[in-house]
């Protein structure tokens, strides 16, 4: 935030400098240029010593990134981080970008040849228009000499925005090798420790009746949960990260079932989970109806409900399967 506080003053200073420069341009142009460059580098170094990623608005972007006298490369992330933009990808990309910038900032090779900056849409919409950019996030590299070429735009669609990939791309474009150092993630360990201590505490509090550990129903429930989660492909979701459901951009229809047998949506796997659970429950009810000792009418109803669950939901499952697996002949 300190950057923002200093900002108007800097602008004033810069504009005065600019005017002065314009006045004396005809004089010793070359020397002034060098002076200006040194000032720019100094300014950039000062900002990046405060924060590893420099925030830019339109004016700063034009002055420090676009304007020609430069001897440093700049990586710019164009993004839209404001909450009202609802860009979840931007936030993830930003995290990766911060990791990368910090790795660079605190590495031994840190120099004034490479700077990391960010332009938010809500602070520099004019930059977006100027560069003809209509999607965020976008990573661009502005080389020290010349204009950015095609390969200076990071291919986000294909490679993704992992900071290792970004580092590889930067090494490719600028010959600066950055070893990505991720701050170790303790959250998983802490969560586990919390859980263990919670369970331990509960057990300690209830040490007088530990009967519930021997409760078979609880264990059976837990086992079934694992089984249902796996057979409905939650592991696939975890590894591949599909969208929850697909919304057709033309007519706004939401489809919960993926059309191909090679993929699935999260919603779809939840539906399948419920169907599997219902069929299993039907089987258990059928068994229950035959073995329990109770009112005959009630048991008849249980039996029929169980049968209905099994038959109805299985045929439902089969029809979903058929809609996904084209050419399946049976219904």
């Amino acid at each position, binding site marked *: 935030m300190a950057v923002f506080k200093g900002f108007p003053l800097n602008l004033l200073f810069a504009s005065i400098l600019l005017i002065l420069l314009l006045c004396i341009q005809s004089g010793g142009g070359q020397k002034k240029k060098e002076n200006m460059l040194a000032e720019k580098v100094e300014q950039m170094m000062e900002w990046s010593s405060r924060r590893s990623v420099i925030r830019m608005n339109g004016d700063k972007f034009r002055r420090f990134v676009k304007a020609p006298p430069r001897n440093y490369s700049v990586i710019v992330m164009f993004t839209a981080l404001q909450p009202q933009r609802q860009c979840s990808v931007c936030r993830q990309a930003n995290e990766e970008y911060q990791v990368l910038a910090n790795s660079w900032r605190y590495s031994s090779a840190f120099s004034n040849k490479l700077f990391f900056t960010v332009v938010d849409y809500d602070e520099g919409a004019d930059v977006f228009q100027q560069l003809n950019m209509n999607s965020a996030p976008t990573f661009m590299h502005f080389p020290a000499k010349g204009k950015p070429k095609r390969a200076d735009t990071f291919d986000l669609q294909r490679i993704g925005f992992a900071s290792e990939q970004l580092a590889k791309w930067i090494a490719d474009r600028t010959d600066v090798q950055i070893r990505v150092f991720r701050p170790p993630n303790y959250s998983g360990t802490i969560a586990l420790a919390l859980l263990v201590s919670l369970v331990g505490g509960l057990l300690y509090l209830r040490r007088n009746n530990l009967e519930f550990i021997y409760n*078979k129903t609880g264990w*059976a429930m837990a086992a079934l949960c694992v*089984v249902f989660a796996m057979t409905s*492909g939650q592991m696939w979701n975890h590894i*591949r990260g599909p969208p929850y459901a697909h919304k057709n951009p033309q007519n706004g229809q939401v489809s919960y079932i993926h059309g191909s047998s090679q993929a699935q949506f999260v919603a*779809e796997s939840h539906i399948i989970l419920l169907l*599997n659970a219902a069929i299993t429950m039907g089987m258990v009810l059928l068994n229950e109806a035959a073995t329990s000792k109770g009112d005959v009418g009630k048991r008849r109803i249980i039996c029929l409900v169980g049968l209905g669950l*099994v038959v109805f939901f*299985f045929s439902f499952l089969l029809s979903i399967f058929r809609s996904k697996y084209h050419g399946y002949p049976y219904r």
Partner: protein
Amino acid sequence: MAEHHTASDCKHKTSSNAGGSVSGNGRPNSPAGCGGSGGLSGGLTQPAGWQSLLSFTILFLAWLAGFSSRLFAVIRFESIIHEFDPWFNYRSTHHLTTNGFYEFLNWFDERAWYPLGRIVGGTVYPGLMVTAGLIHYILNLLHVTVHIRDVCVFLAPVFSGLTAISTFLLTRELWNQGAGLLAACFIAIVPGYISRSVAGSFDNEGIAIFALQFTYYLWVKSVKTGSVFWAIGCCLSYFYMVSAWGGYVFIINLIPLHVFALLLMQRFSRRLYIAYSTFYIVGLVLSMQIPFVGFQPIRTSEHMAAAGVFALLQAYAFLQYLKDRLTRQEFQTLFFLGVSLAAGVVFLTVIYLTYTGESHLPVMLRYAKIHIPIIASVSEHQPTTWVSFFFDLHILVCTFPAGLWFCIKNINDERVFVALYAISAVYFAGVMVRLMLTLTPVVCMLSAIAFSSVFEHYLGDDMKRENPPAEDSKQDRPEEGLGPNIKSIVTMLMLMLLMMFAVHCTWVTSNAYSSPSVVLASYNHDGSRNILDDFREAYYWLRQNTDEHARVMSWWDYGYQIAGMANRTTLVDNNTWNNSHIALVGKAMSSNESAAYEIMKSLDVDYVLIIFGGVIGYSGDDINKFLWMVRIAEGEHPKDIRESDYFTPQGEFRVDKAGSPTLLNCLMYKMSYYRFGPYTRLDFRTPPGFDRTRNAEIGNKDIRLKHLEEAFTSEHWLVRIYRVKKQENRQALDHKLRNIAAKQKYTSKKVLPSLFH
């Protein structure tokens, strides 16, 4: 074909029907049945005899059904080895039968991985080859002369019958005979297992599932009886499993897990102690006899759980012993001393392991999964969608949780085992498609338990309850109350479901899992069939027309087939042990011709073989696999090969005019489309040079090759072979007339005296 289809269908129906009825009859034996025993024996003179006759018949029918439903490929095509890996297994079995066992163990294969070679004897699980070789030997001893190929082709279907029997035995130990019979019928026809055991798929998994199930049966038996006899049997079966498949790691972790769970549940017993101690020690020694396994069981972290549980069990037993001998006070001090000592030892081991890096194995696996493209490129290593679960298991996947529920509700020592088996197997199957194979047997068993307990209650006829013993009448009356109508409806619908399962299994087997992939078939509009035998045509051409020591370069998928069918030296094959060698081949394929020629020269390549599906629309060809070659090459040679060069600016992979120039000029593209552009016009609707696989007119029609020449192209252009030209003589200098210019004056140059001192 159709006859066969219905015939095997009928068998499925009869077998599952019969299985159902027997589980109704099999009540007297059922440990978890609802107590109404004794009523049945009045009707039949000798129920035990009837039961065993029925069981034998059903098991025999299950075997027959399982065997015959695996024969689709043989009947449609011929008795041929399928796919890729089986060709290697077949080749080594052939080597075994012609040269003997010891020669096989010491076999150094110089025809693979040229110029490195491969030590085959020490890098394979020999169980499969030895089994096939042994059967061949015995048959020949009996003067039944069969070719080793036929033994290999029919090995997996025969073993599926043995799997059915061992599943029956295991399920009988877990639940009752009826459930066992149902489980045997299920596993005989379930697609999840058929996928790896059709006739012709001569692979480790075919016999390994039998070994797995049989080991588990013997383990459960030895825990139940606590006899050393059964435990030793379990070890021998485990030894067979270790010799057959790398999946033995699953056994050596699951059994200790079972023991550990039993200890936690305070179900320790002498039986358990005897069974596990015997199993661990003898099994460890036996498993180390396999050359490929060697000292892994005492070194690697996958085997450490077994050792830890062994130590724990000894300590527990020792404490139990002390408890009998010492007073309470002494025992307590000793206990605390022991526990603190053990904690210290465990702590030190953990530190040691962390520093030597052993325990980082999972992390490294994850790393490998993300960063080494060769692992990611194999489709079997993908996670599993629910569709594959349903496709491979159908109704079983929805009903087996019910069986698990019943097992946990009526828990005992061996049901703890099956519950752990189910949970761990379902987890692994979720992570990787190919591990569906280890899930399938337990799903069959638990589903059989679920169905069997339903049938048990609903199929039992009400007739026998007409004269129940008087004291039982109170409890029995409500059961009668359900009424015959509801009972028969339930039974009918359940049988309907099982019938659908049988039909589904047959359909899946016939359509998805019975293609040899060496021979392709295409169907015309009138249903008649064309056989595309291009692969064998090309391999046979190689065998007949090339030098015996010619070296053939191809992508690694075809290495085993070239070695097996063409008997020529290959550079890389499906045993992907050397990533950089594969990357070099990938680099040759994805560079331009002159750069590739340098690589091929350095590797002594004589022929290059590629698969091209553009003429017939075969989608598994090399252009479609090409990006993986580029990625693998990029991993090793990032300076020369860059994946982004092969995409259009929009990030598409296109072979038409809009495609990237690097792609249009790389060796793979040139070899695939050589002579394809101007000369071929497949039909009148499409322009010349239209690729049917990618539905695009190719972008580079004028392809000229400088260092290669076309040697052979198969009938449907599926396989194309190029000969690498030998280096030409040194380029002759252009002949120039000698022109004598103005005479130069030669002046003798005095040599500096300092040079000659």
